[in-house]
């Protein structure tokens, strides 16, 4: 049986961090999470890792494998170069609790800021929703909330725009841009979130560099299908004088 080296970041919040080198027996079809489980079972029972489904559907096992944000259960060992040690670290953008487990609670705080769906017509029996009206938002509903896009986005990762007390300098992040886009594009939604998108979610912080799209395990085209359309809607409302004039004349919001 072949063996491979896994160098795993170990440590606790505020505590000392070490990289520990483990040797793992590699079998066919293994993913990084299997290797981590093997380490847990045979060498380090106290190694902390969060996981639930091992099927890339629960969004719990986000980490960084060889420096790249990835779901550990979706990263196959036969896609990695096992002649070199595989490095596994926790997500950088969120505070580490222990070893590979991070506290992603900040995301839920952002979620609370978003005004929920407000039906234009309370009588849902009368709703007729056609396929073409809902297909855009369906893509966004695939999100498994792994928060890897939030972790990869440089606005949160490098520029740390996470201060909830300074809304003008906060960035909601790509995961919540798709939620906002899905709500704003919904034909039956009567809420208006565009000022929030511009001044509190701050879509303007995104510079279209597409790391969110690159890492999304659900292959949601976050930048092209959610963020750019939101930016265009913000332009309609707040930047483009002709669109603003037309909007006023026609009473369109």
């Amino acid at each position: 049986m072949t063996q491979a080296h896994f160098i795993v970041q170990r440590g606790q919040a505020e505590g000392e961090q070490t990289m520990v080198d483990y040797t793992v027996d590699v079998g066919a079809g293994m993913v990084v999470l299997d290797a981590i489980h093997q380490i847990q079972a045979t060498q380090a029972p106290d190694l902390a890792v969060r996981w639930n489904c091992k099927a890339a559907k629960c969004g719990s096992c986000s980490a960084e494998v060889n420096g790249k944000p990835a779901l550990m259960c979706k990263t196959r060992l036969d896609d990695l170069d096992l002649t070199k040690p595989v490095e596994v670290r926790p997500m950088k953008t969120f505070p580490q609790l222990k070893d590979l487990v991070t506290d992603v609670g900040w995301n839920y705080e952002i979620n609370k800021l978003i005004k929920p769906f407000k039906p234009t017509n309370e009588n849902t029996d009368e709703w007729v929703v056609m396929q073409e009206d809902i297909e855009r938002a369906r893509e966004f509903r695939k999100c498994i909330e792994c928060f890897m896009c939030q972790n990869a986005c440089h606005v949160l990762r490098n520029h740390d725009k996470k201060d909830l007390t300074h809304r003008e300098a906060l960035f909601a992040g790509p995961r919540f841009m798709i939620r906002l886009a899905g709500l704003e594009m919904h034909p039956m939604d009567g809420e208006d979130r565009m000022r929030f998108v511009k001044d509190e979610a701050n879509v303007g912080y995104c510079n279209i560099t597409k790391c969110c799209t690159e890492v999304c395990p659900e292959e949601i085209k976050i930048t092209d299908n959610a963020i750019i359309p939101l930016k265009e809607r913000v332009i309609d409302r707040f930047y483009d004088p002709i669109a603003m004039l037309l909007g006023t004349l026609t009473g369109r919001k």
Partner: protein
Amino acid sequence: MIAHPSTVPVAPRPCGPFKTHRQDAWWGENVFSLVTFALFTVYTIWAVLQNTHYEWGPYLSPFYSPHLTAMFPETFNWVKFSPAFLVIWMPLGFRATCYFCRRVYHRAVFNDPASCAVELPKPINYTGEKAFPFVLLNMHRYFLYLALVLVVFHWSHVWQATQFEDGFHVGLGTLVITLDALFLTLYVFSCHSLRHLIGGRLNHFSKSGCSQAKHTLWSVVSKLNEHHGKYFWISLFAVWAADAYVRLVAMGCLSDFRLF
């Protein structure tokens, strides 16, 4: 046999300005972008300053399109400099504000971020596209309106490029100019702003016949939009090739090959 785990120091970050734990060649794409941009910029400045060899027979270099000084000699008789200056700001402004191009230069030129999970060379006060100067990129749609006009001109040059002194013919130059017009069209018609303006801004596509028609248009642009980045690069090389071809033929370095 399981070996005993050993503690190794937290892997030292690679030296150089870009701190990252990534091990793959994430910088390859940036090198391509930087080299292409640099060569294209130098070539464009040179070609625009030339003020000569931009026409040959029925061919016109796309850098000089639309040829305003030839179309309206009276109005533009004050133009003593290269007529390319009258028009080149339109395609350049369109490209510079293009969403795809923004991705390319924010990565390759400003390193913000150089690539995913790569740190900044040094911390900056980040304002993204919320404040000056990048907030100006929001006017991309105005350049789009101009680019739509340019598309018409580029196709008119394709027609012109078949009108030789001895009648209708197709030369290699005609093909090169056609490729330029074709890829410019694909590039413009896959634009994100167009995708929004043509229908994406609606929420209720099925509401009326008119909004259903907009949904169809939006779907077509959305299909093209998936390849917007590809069209950006191909049309850049196509316009470059068209200018170079016309220039080489006009300078006498190359003789035009007539197909029929």
